[in-house]
């Protein structure tokens, strides 16, 4: 199985269609199966940390300091959430994260698709070399580039546009406007689209750009949404770079904001868990809504094996 096959399949990993449509109805068992006995403990164990976090977020400071711990808060202390929001501007953090993530996704989709298309379909001087060089950057870990990136962003902030500089959201967006991985991903996908469709459009007089937007992109929705999901997740959860670049609280993204919050309240576990739940909620919602794309994005990177 290649990336292409997985991307073209419109659904999340499903049983492989390896058998011809002979006289074999589906094998779905509809009786309660003993397998649940194995699956339930596993699911519980995996979800335990999250559930425990939720429980604790509703406990009073006294309850959190109990040993052995309280299994169920006697009086759910919803005020923990109120306090968390008062103690640090969590909605501001979320807004910042959302802004950065959304802009990053949009620019990535736009720029990676035109670049990916060019690498997939156009012939131009130096194409092979350029592609190789861009892909080579994928091999270099972030820690190598982060120090100079810091200096570059600082310079931009001072000499070009303050919004791009230290302690501004622009600095979080700028280095991630395009990723080589995104270009690679979309190029691979575009290669699987039958050339004849584009050639037919060109014969009809459509410009190159027109072909890209009117023919190729509509056919690439699965790949684009997968890339969008991946990019969003990456941007939202990104920590090291925002940590380095932003120290002003009102410009912080969620992970960084949460970290400073934790530093300030590190023994107030109830409060801390409430803050944690708040921070987790947006991503969980997005995850459940777009689960299919997340799963597919991960599966396709693995299957290209």
């Amino acid at each position: 199985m290649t990336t292409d096959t997985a991307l073209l399949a419109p659904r999340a990993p499903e049983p492989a269609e390896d058998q011809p449509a002979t006289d074999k109805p589906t094998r779905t068992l509809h009786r309660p199966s003993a397998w649940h006995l194995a699956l339930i403990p596993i699911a519980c164990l995996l979800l335990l940390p999250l559930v425990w976090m939720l429980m604790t977020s509703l406990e009073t400071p006294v309850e959190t300091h109990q040993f052995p711990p309280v299994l169920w808060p006697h009086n759910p202390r919803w005020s923990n959430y109120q306090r968390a929001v008062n103690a640090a501007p969590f909605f501001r953090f979320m807004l910042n994260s959302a802004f950065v993530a959304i802009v990053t996704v949009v620019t990535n989709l736009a720029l990676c698709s035109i670049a990916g298309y060019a690498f997939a379909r156009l012939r131009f001087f130096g194409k092979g070399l350029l592609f190789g060089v861009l892909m080579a950057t994928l091999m270099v870990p972030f820690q190598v580039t982060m120090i100079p990136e810091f200096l570059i962003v600082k310079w931009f902030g001072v000499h070009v546009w303050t919004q791009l500089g230290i302690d501004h959201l622009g600095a979080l967006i700028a280095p991630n406007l395009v990723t080589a991985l995104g270009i690679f991903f979309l190029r691979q996908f575009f290669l699987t689209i039958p050339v004849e469709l584009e050639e037919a459009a060109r014969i009809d007089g459509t410009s190159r750009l027109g072909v890209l937007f009117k023919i190729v992109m509509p056919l690439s929705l699965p790949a684009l949404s997968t890339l969008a999901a991946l990019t969003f997740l990456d941007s939202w959860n990104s920590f090291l770079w925002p940590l380095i670049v932003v120290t002003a609280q009102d410009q912080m993204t969620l992970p960084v904001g949460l970290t400073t919050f934790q530093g300030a309240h590190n023994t107030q576990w109830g409060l801390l868990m409430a803050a944690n739940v708040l921070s987790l909620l947006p991503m969980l919602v997005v995850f459940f809504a777009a689960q299919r794309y997340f799963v597919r994005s991960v599966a396709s990177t693995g299957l290209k094996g």
Partner: protein
Amino acid sequence: MAEVEFRAVTKRFAGDVVAVKSMDLHVDDGEFVILVGPSGCGKTTALRMLAGLDKPTSGELCIGGEVINAQGPGERDIAMVFQNYALYPHMSVYKNLAYGLRQRKMAKPEVDRRVRAMSETLGIIELLDRKPGQLSGGQRQRVAMGRALVREPQVFLLDEPLSNLDAKLRGQVRAELKRLHQRLGITSIYVTHDQVEAMTLGDRICVMNHGELQQVGTPQQVYDSPANAFVAGFIGNPAMNLLRAKVVDGFAVLGNHQVVRAPRGHGEVVVGIRPEAFRLAPPHEAGIQAHVDFHEPLGSHVLVHALIDDVVPSGANDSGSVIMQASPDLHPEPGERLTLTAAPERIFLFDAESGEVREVREASAAAPSLDERATRA
């Protein structure tokens, strides 16, 4: 003794889909039996139950007189060739062949001897070091057979093993299969949707439809004496002509023509005449009046597609069109008029509703032929 028996075997899937309905079948030791029928008729399900890959909802499966329902596939001493071969892609051909033997803890020298002997027989000895991905379709099919036969099983199951081969190869492998069976004499059950394979390979054929056995018999029996309209229309290539006819005055009437006597009938019947049973009526004799639609020359014979005159189309599959198999000397032009006739013993009558055969036609002087009736009428 490796006789196989299905006793009232039923398979019901979730959602009340009954794939196999109370199947009763006895296969003798060494017999080559074919399960044939259209997609969805239950033949593969029946095979899989015998293999142990699916559990029957009720009924008993027996091998060698022993009820094997409780045994797993590995314990039944059966071997199977799958439609897509199911060769282990990460193992060499040698390892593929040896796998089943190794699982049964056979000693290495013995394994080696058997694998090499079978590879010789099947002509794949040079391929032993290759992986399935490096083989052609025909080679893979042989390896699949080798993997099954090397275990010298009591029963040999085959699930449409030829359907992925191209036409020429299919013919070759069919012949080889027949030779192999003559040599090895293993009880074999073979599933296919191709009635040509069924006719040429089987000692006996079991025609299935909608989960039920329609008829079991030798190829010639099934061809000569179909039990119902389904079997009649399924066996034989090109298919038997099946036409709705009204019964008037004790005769089945096609269009304006009294085709044959239908003594117990009233209302409607289905008349069945094989393409090869038709002949042109000699001049001045009565018969079914038809005109030529088009023809298909096949070298050794011609298939003439004709439309019976004055027949009102009464449904999607019954527009009064028939196929006649004729000698290649005939050069019918479209629109040309023909008078068709057939010997009464080769005309079948089927019940219009149930499809069951109504009469067993026999050549007898008492039954009037078309010619006689025409002169009489």
